[in-house]
């Protein structure tokens, strides 16, 4: 099981800092920083800058994403913000608006 789960129905207004996997299925407004993987579930609404080892987005995210490893926007996911990552994928059916920096 993931170290930290923000379940559906839970809303957090503030900063989250973690050194373990974080799964967000609820709502978050603020900032999310993890040194492990971050995953944003399909029903979640996030207004936050997200930094994680890898970031996977299936819900709605507004904010900048930074990940040394990879960022994936899943089908149905929606991201408005800039992405900085070594690898970046946008699945068919995902929506994205922002700039991409892959450090080329």
């Amino acid at each position, binding site marked *: *099981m*993931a*170290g*930290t*789960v*923000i*379940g*559906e*129905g*839970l*809303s*957090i*207004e*503030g*900063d*989250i*800092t*973690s*050194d*373990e*996997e*974080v799964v967000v*299925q*609820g709502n978050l407004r*603020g900032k999310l920083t993890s040194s492990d993987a971050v995953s944003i579930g399909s029903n979640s609404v996030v207004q936050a800058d997200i930094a994680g080892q890898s970031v996977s987005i299936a819900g709605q995210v507004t904010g900048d994403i930074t990940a040394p490893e990879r960022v994936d926007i899943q089908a149905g996911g929606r991201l408005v913000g800039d992405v900085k990552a070594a690898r970046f994928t946008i699945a068919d059916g995902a929506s994205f608006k922002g700039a991409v920096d892959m450090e080329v």
Partner: protein
Amino acid sequence: MSQSSVIGAGTVVRGNLEGEGSLDIFGRVEGDVTMSGDVTVGDGGSVRGHITANKISVQGAVQGDLHGSEAVLLERGAKVVGDLNAPRIGIGSGALVRGSVRTEGEPAVAGGAKRAPVAALKPAVFAAKPVAKVEPKPAPMREAEPIAVAAAPLPRLKEREPERRPPPPVLPSLGKGAKAKKKGR
């Protein structure tokens, strides 16, 4: 899965948490927690802020008030600095609390009613004790009493002395002499 949330041991949340379902906190939360379900502050977890939930159980540390609409349970290892408020409150052995504890509803009302008469009786008992004892007690007691009042003004001592004295009748006279000497000095 959808209704249950976990703040893991390696996670710090600075801000308020609010929502439905249950929440387990093994990490650190600096902010208020408001949940419709149950909140558990696990061993090693800490919260700096008020917690409002249906049932709150604590094994970690909380600095803030705990308000449970059903219960607040402090288990072994819990450290709470703040007020506890719930219809049902349990404080296990090994749990530390600093704050006021209040159970809502009938128990709280009954407790308040009891307090008033007890407070009113206490001063009356202290004032009446010497007078009340002198009157009803037999002659040997009377002799002992005034001496006791002069030598030992504590009402508790007076109670104990007469109880011990009656069995050996010789003692009162000795006691009188000793105390009289003290008086003279």
